[in-house]
């Protein structure tokens, strides 16, 4: 999907550097989506074996739920940003300025999402040690 967008971008804008940075940002979005997927799967697994302490009003699940709601909102924002990126690329009037603005917003959103994912992790009682070990 992203590859198709690149050719569109190439057609629409003459600015190679702008395209490349935007592509990089979009790739980051793909990577981060996968990370979120993994986190949500882990939470699913946790819920299935959670006890009262975890499920209580002030338990981890309540916290995680709030964070997930926040994440959801951020995802919608990213969606819009990507749509904008495609619109700009299709619009021959689109300038480098627009692209760098979208990029900045996307990066900022990604960074806040990373922070949120971190918060989810820190709220999980069963989180294993994240040592960098040899496989």
């Amino acid at each position, binding site marked *: 999907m992203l590859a198709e967008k690149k050719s569109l971008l190439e057609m629409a804008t003459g600015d190679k550097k702008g395209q490349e940075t935007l592509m990089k940002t979009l790739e980051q979005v793909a*990577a981060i989506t*996968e990370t979120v997927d993994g986190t949500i799967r882990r939470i699913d697994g946790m819920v299935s074996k959670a006890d009262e302490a975890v499920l209580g009003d002030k338990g981890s699940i309540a916290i995680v739920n709030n964070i997930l709601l926040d994440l959801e909102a951020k995802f919608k924002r990213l969606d819009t940003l990507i749509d904008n990126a495609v619109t700009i690329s299709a619009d021959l009037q689109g300038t480098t300025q627009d692209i760098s603005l979208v990029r900045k917003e996307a990066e900022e959103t990604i960074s806040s999402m990373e922070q949120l994912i971190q918060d989810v992790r*820190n709220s999980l009682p069963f989180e294993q*040690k994240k040592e*960098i*070990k040899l*496989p």
Partner: protein
Amino acid sequence: MAACSSQPSPAWQNVAYTQLANYTESYLAGDERLAGIHFDKALEHISKTGDPALVGRAWLTRCALETAALIETPCDQAKEYGGDPANDSYRAMLEGATVKSDLLPAQYRDLMAALAKRSTKEVNIVLADIDEPVSRLIGVGVALKRGTFDTATLELAADCASKNGWKTPLAAYLLRLKTAYGAAGQSDKAAAVEARFEILAGDKK
């Protein structure tokens, strides 16, 4: 030093850990583009520590996965960050050298003993006993490098890769199996392997 480690784990470590895990999954599942992004990201965060042993570990992870996928790999980048005894032993193991197993991760110790005896039967038993599927396939790659394996080793590896949807190593094992069954004149088995391989190839479209 102890007072300096934050609780829970520091941010770089969390990110690097997840990115390396995502790299592993993407690489084995055959998505090299995504694997590349995850690996670069992991390296970026690990580099924040300035610790050559940790950077070496990231490169060794890459080298180990390539070994599992039966790709000839020189482990050059890992060599650049040599000097850590555990890392160096691990690299030697991946290269197919005889290594003292006490510095290796625990899951490979029995394998090293079985390989030292050159007993294919024992190697297969020990490999089936490695719980972590990634480690099991790395072990298979090492056994192949040492030349102590048979079709049962390859079947065990293919089964493990197939269950996890790890296309990259699976394709490598199936190719080896096809050749092995073909050479042994077991044409029905070779045909069955070919059928599995065709399904994998179709997935590329």
